């Protein structure tokens, strides 16, 4: 991985292309009437939640105004789909002990978007001892802890203690990481840094580990043409202090992006011509590409101007953090 200032022109084209395709795909992000009953959440809530999480970030942090505006339009669309948060009250009512409605709601809450009934419900459900029972894996728990923070709730476990149990926290031998564990490490970084908003939370030890081994992981997943993982690894790379810029990897990802702005998850986009199939094959990687290119763009600007501790956009997006100074 070489250093250098990166390629802002390429990165901005990639974000614009991605957001353009996502904008055209709004219809597929729309929630169906049965979203709170028998619809598959992987095809409804998951895509909308990702759209909200990443467009919120781009809408605040991207240095280019027209890109921020485009992202904010998509974020507003996502909030509108939740019927101004009423969806979360319904979801929590239906599944009071599930974490996903709280995690989704937290995405909007960080932007100050709240719903009174949902707030009242989470105040009760997240105080139960039953809420503190471990679910899913440690990486997912970090996301739940972040959602609690975003909602102003008491965190049900100590963030640093949970992080220590994750794939990042344990600093595994880099040659042991398979697809699933690399994916886990990228999300440990996203949760720790609040998706790159608080990159200084990455300890020197973690940063050193990632700086050393990211190039080998990138090489592996570039070869597999797993573009979502490539994008996530590039996003993690952009979270490092004095972030390196890997021109070869970025060029490969840019080449995988189609003329319409979509980025397939693996290999080449499906050629059936079915737009619903294309949406499912591309929405995740396209969002990840916009996200990674935004973080890399910010890193470019930093390399140009020196660290941006006082940058109002970044400070505005910065999360108050209970363990920022933790070792």
């Amino acid at each position, binding site marked *: 991985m070489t250093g250098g200032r990166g390629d802002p022109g390429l990165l901005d084209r990639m974000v614009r292309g991605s957001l353009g395709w996502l904008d055209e795909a709004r219809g597929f992000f729309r929630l169906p009437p049965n979203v709170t009953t028998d619809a598959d959440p992987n095809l409804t809530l998951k895509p909308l939640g990702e759209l909200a999480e990443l467009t919120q970030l781009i809408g605040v942090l991207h240095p280019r105004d027209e890109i921020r505006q485009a992202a904010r339009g998509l974020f507003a669309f996502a909030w509108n789909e939740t019927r101004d948060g009423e969806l979360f009250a319904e979801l929590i009512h239906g599944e009071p002990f599930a974490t996903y409605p709280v995690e989704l709601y937290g995405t909007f809450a960080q932007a100050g978007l709240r719903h009174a009934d949902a707030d009242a419900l989470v105040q009760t459900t997240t105080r139960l001892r039953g809420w503190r029972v471990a679910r899913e894996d440690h990486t997912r728990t970090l996301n739940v802890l972040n959602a609690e923070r975003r909602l102003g709730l008491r965190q049900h476990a100590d963030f640093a203690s949970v992080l220590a149990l994750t794939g990042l926290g344990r*600093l595994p*031998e*880099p*040659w042991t990481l398979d697809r699933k564990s690399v994916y886990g490490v990228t999300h440990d970084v996203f949760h720790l840094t609040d998706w790159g908003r608080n990159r200084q939370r990455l300890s020197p030890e973690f940063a050193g580990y990632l700086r*050393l*081994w990211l*190039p*080998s992981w990138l*090489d*592996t997943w570039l070869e597999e043409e797993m573009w979502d993982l490539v994008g996530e690894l590039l996003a993690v790379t952009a979270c490092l202090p004095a972030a390196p810029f890997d021109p070869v990897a970025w060029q490969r990802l840019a080449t995988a992006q189609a003329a319409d702005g979509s980025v397939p998850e693996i290999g080449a986009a499906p050629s059936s011509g079915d737009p619903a199939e294309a949406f499912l094959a591309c929405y995740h990687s396209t969002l990840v590409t916009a996200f990674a290119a935004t973080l890399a763009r910010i890193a470019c600007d930093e390399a140009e101007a020196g660290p941006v501790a006082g940058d109002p956009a970044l400070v505005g997006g910065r999360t108050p953090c209970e363990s920022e100074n933790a070792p």
Partner: protein
Amino acid sequence: MAEQTQGAVPLSAVIADAATGVALALRGEGGPYALSGILRHNDALTPAAVRVLGADALAPYAMEHRGAPVGPEDEAVVRQALAAYPPGADASEVSRWTYRGLVEASHAFLPAGAQPWPAPPEAATGWVDSTPWPKLSHRVSQLAALALPKLAPGLAEQLTARTDDLSRGFVRAVRRRDWLQAAGLGRWLARLPDVAPTLGLDSGLAFVRQMGGADPRVALHVVAAQRFYGRGW
């Protein structure tokens, strides 16, 4: 190896058997090592096998307590290989370096004898600084036999500056289940002074031996890393 009919055994099998013999000797098993005992002077494939094994054909002689003295037959096997396969004018860097490795090993580990050993041929190192890490790693793994005490000190010094890149190559090779490349790189990393602790080189070498040790050349590299540099479980 003994009693094999000429032509019936492919070169790869001859090399594999010889690598097994070398690894055995490095482990201190199988009695005193004699090169001419594992690769016979009058076997038609011996010069090619010695050329492929390179310095590793003489690796057991680099041990402090090697047992049997080097005899004229052993020396003849080496001279024969050096004479048969000198690198041509258009030889690759790998070919030049492996040949040089065998010459350097002869100087370092064999007695001078009546006839002097040829001077080591020139081999460039410019590529070490300029080659991207995946290609560099592949090339260096092909030079694993040079990761022996006293050999190629200049190359070792230059590779020290690329330790992190070679470590990335080790990760890449294990992920690709390319055990031979991983073992060769692990062996070089065992020689280099500043390998990052997070790589887990010792456990990595043990893992590569478990996964790929059925290939005698993989086993040989892992054993050499342990014998000469104390790395690996």
